[in-house]
């Protein structure tokens, strides 16, 4: 039986394992380590979904948006490609290389496209390139039956499937890619037989989220996002996470630390106790009450410049971090880290609601991406996008 790629139910629930690391010096390593780390935690997943995201994997094509798309059939492909051809310039289109893997029967059609935006179009529409891409991703994912874009960033890619995560990694031949940041996820859905699109990570542009948890505030997070034009088509918590970060970081121009505080804010008591220096946190809670992600979660959020681990406000899901030299590791279990880094300099459990952040060193940032983003001051809260864009 072929697994579906889109959901057919209202909301799904799942538990999970996650792991990730960033080489802050920009050193690129192949996907072998991340497969081993997530593979060790197979016990936390049930073979109904696994996925990866790697950064720095398409250095030759770093100025092009890399779309990874799954199709249920040829007709979906035809329709989606019609949209791509109409709105974007396709540089390369090809099948995503895979190998036959025992645990992953009947994959859908998996394609990747390297795309550019026609600048005249942006000029006419008066929107930023990123916003334009977001529109197209939303359009195809919500309107074309049987087509689903699961990766849309530059010089990065997401890979996901129904299966155990280590099998998924082998299936996509990840040992052939070189990246400076990798994240991975193993899924334990409790109420669905598994579907391709529902595997993690969820991505939008170069943001990727892997997530362990259930968002009890899903109903309001979703309605809040709808006010800003996001359509939560996949009905999973993680999609909501990805869009919340996109809204706060890209559209509202908030630094990552501030965005994390919106998702997992301190209690009112804490805010009051700290007094004036927390004035902005109070305002943050008042303004972004509907952004508060309530319920148990541990997430890894990666983007081209960094890796962030975050827990819910009372830490109801596991998350461990470790550091060795220039590499920051974050995973569900310490064992997942020790599997690929036997003697870390430091291992710790991040506190509830406080982000653990790894940043790509400044001098390496230009190398991997277009010059749009610069982060100047390492001590102060940092904006992922420091150039004001159009919302």
């Amino acid at each position: 039986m072929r697994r579906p790629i889109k959901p057919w139910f209202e909301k799904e629930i799942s538990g999970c394992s996650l792991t990730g690391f960033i080489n802050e010096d920009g050193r690129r390593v192949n996907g072998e380590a991340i497969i081993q780390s997530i593979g060790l935690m197979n016990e936390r997943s049930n073979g109904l979904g696994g996925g990866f995201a790697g950064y720095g994997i398409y250095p030759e094509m770093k100025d092009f948006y890399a779309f990874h798309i799954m199709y249920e059939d040829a007709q979906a492909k035809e329709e989606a490609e019609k949209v791509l051809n109409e709105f974007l310039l396709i540089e390369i289109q090809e099948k995503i290389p895979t190998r036959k893997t025992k645990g992953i029967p009947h994959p859908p059609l998996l394609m990747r496209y390297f795309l550019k935006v026609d600048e005249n179009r942006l000029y006419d529409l008066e929107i930023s390139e990123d916003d334009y891409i977001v529109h197209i991703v939303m359009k195809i994912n919500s309107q074309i039956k049987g087509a689903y874009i699961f990766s849309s960033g530059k010089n990065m890619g997401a890979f996901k499937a129904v299966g155990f995560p280590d099998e998924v990694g082998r299936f996509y031949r990840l040992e052939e890619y070189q990246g400076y940041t990798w994240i991975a996820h193993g899924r334990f859905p409790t109420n669905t037989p598994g579907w391709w699109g529902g595997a993690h990570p969820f991505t939008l542009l170069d943001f990727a989220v892997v997530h362990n948890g259930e968002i009890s505030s899903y109903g309001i997070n979703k309605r809040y996002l709808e006010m800003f034009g996001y359509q939560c088509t996949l009905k999973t918590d993680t999609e909501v996470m990805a869009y919340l970060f996109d809204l706060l970081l890209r559209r509202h121009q908030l630094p990552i630390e501030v965005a994390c505080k919106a998702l997992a804010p301190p209690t009112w008591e804490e805010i009051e106790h700290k007094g004036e220096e927390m004035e902005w946190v109070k305002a943050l809670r008042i303004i972004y009450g509907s952004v508060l992600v309530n319920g148990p979660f541990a997430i890894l959020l990666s983007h081209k410049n960094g890796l962030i681990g975050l827990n819910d406000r009372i830490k109801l899901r596991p998350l461990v971090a470790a550091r060795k030299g220039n590499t920051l590791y974050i995973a569900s279990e310490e064992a997942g880290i020790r599997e690929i880094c036997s003697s870390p300099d430091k291992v710790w459990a991040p506190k509830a609601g406080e982000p653990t952040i790894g940043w790509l060193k400044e001098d390496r940032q230009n190398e991997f991406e277009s010059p749009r983003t610069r982060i100047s001051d390492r001590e102060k809260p940092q904006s992922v996008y420091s150039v004001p864009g159009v919302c």
Partner: protein
Amino acid sequence: MCVRQCAFKGHSYDPETDEVISKEELCVGCHRCVTLCPTNALTVRQNPLDFRPNGNWTPWAIRNIFKQAETGGVLLTGMGNDRPYPVYWDHLLLNASQVTNPSIDPLREPMELRTYLGRKPKKLELDYTQETLKLKTPLPPQLKLETPILFSAMSYGAISYNACESLARAAEKLGTYYNTGEGGLHPNLYKYGKNTIVQVASGRFGVHKEYLDTAAAIEIKIGQGAKPGIGGHLPGEKVVEDISKTRMIPKGTDALSPAPQHDIYSIEDLRMLIFALKEATRYTKPISVKIAAVHNSPAIASGMVRAGADIIALDGFRGGTGASPMVIRDNVGIPIEFALASVDQRLREEGIRHQASIIVAGGFRNSADVSKAIALGADAVYIGTASLIAMGCHVCQKCYTGKCNWGIATQDPYLEKRLNPDIATERLVNLINAWSHEIKEMLGGMGINAIESLRGNRLALRGIGLTDTELEILGVLPAGR
């Protein structure tokens, strides 16, 4: 004892026969005599004497015709709509977590009910140039509530001074607000100003600079759920010395509130009044606009937000009143559940939901009703009748007579002193604390620890016994799905 307790003169003492005579036709069913009878000798039961059964010509319909045939007048009544319309709260069920997300124990973990009411900016803007992060622009004024429940507008005049004082003191103790209604503010209560919402209504009674300056927020009253489209009438007998001073009208004259505000004939006029009040208070207080829930509430609410309202108060058709024509109370307006659901949805569709908070009112009976309203999209709930009941009201619906035996809806000095403000304050505080505890338990059960995660979270609700259309309007799924 019973003879003295009944302001409706239901009991009388005949010294010749040394007997107490009770006239059941005068009984309003307030239970005052029953509650206070030292020998437990009294009981009040419905009189079995009735008309011949008739599905159309019920005793209620027949008696009303008798009354009107005698007087030629409009039938008056008090409190909220008592007709057996569906109560949609009773058709909504709340969720709880099992296994995949843990429920949270409010006795062990923080559980937050704090709510801020007022206009919010769309996004946070910070100044990064300094050592610590600073807000670029200060937030618009907000009301801070420790629990999402406020005391609804009840004027000094409709209710007694002691009742007003109790509400004010309870609001202060609870960290919430009470609302003056359009009765002005008695000078003794100015000290509770930071917990007071003052009303500016069509009669403009008692509105002056100090009144506005003292309050935490100002509410423009356009309409009331118990009598949409109708003004108010406080009979001259109730306008005693203190009330005349507070309302700034001559003693003994009828206090007539016109149906419309005579300077608001359109949405642009409302905007002028909102900004006149904002100017007068130098933009330091949120301005609320209260309307009755009617058929096109969503469009009206959207206009109100665009006209500058920071808070929208929606009063459903079960909302109470001191006095209203019965035909209006029982037949005009729509249930608050539908009004709330459609207003919240409309404001979201227009992307302006953050510009105003929504307070709903109209017959909230318990903490479950409150929780369900918040899940449908309300920021907070006004309670009127429930707070009166906490003070001792037995819902006999005779508020308009001024003869309240419980000392609540009366200005009669003899009756008024029956309400002890110390005790009434404590009972109000108890009620809200009890409801807050229950809301915390329900939140914890759902696996969330802050009220903002329930607000507008309609996935926390399921409908039972509702039609598809009703479910669609409420924006909830049926139970089982």
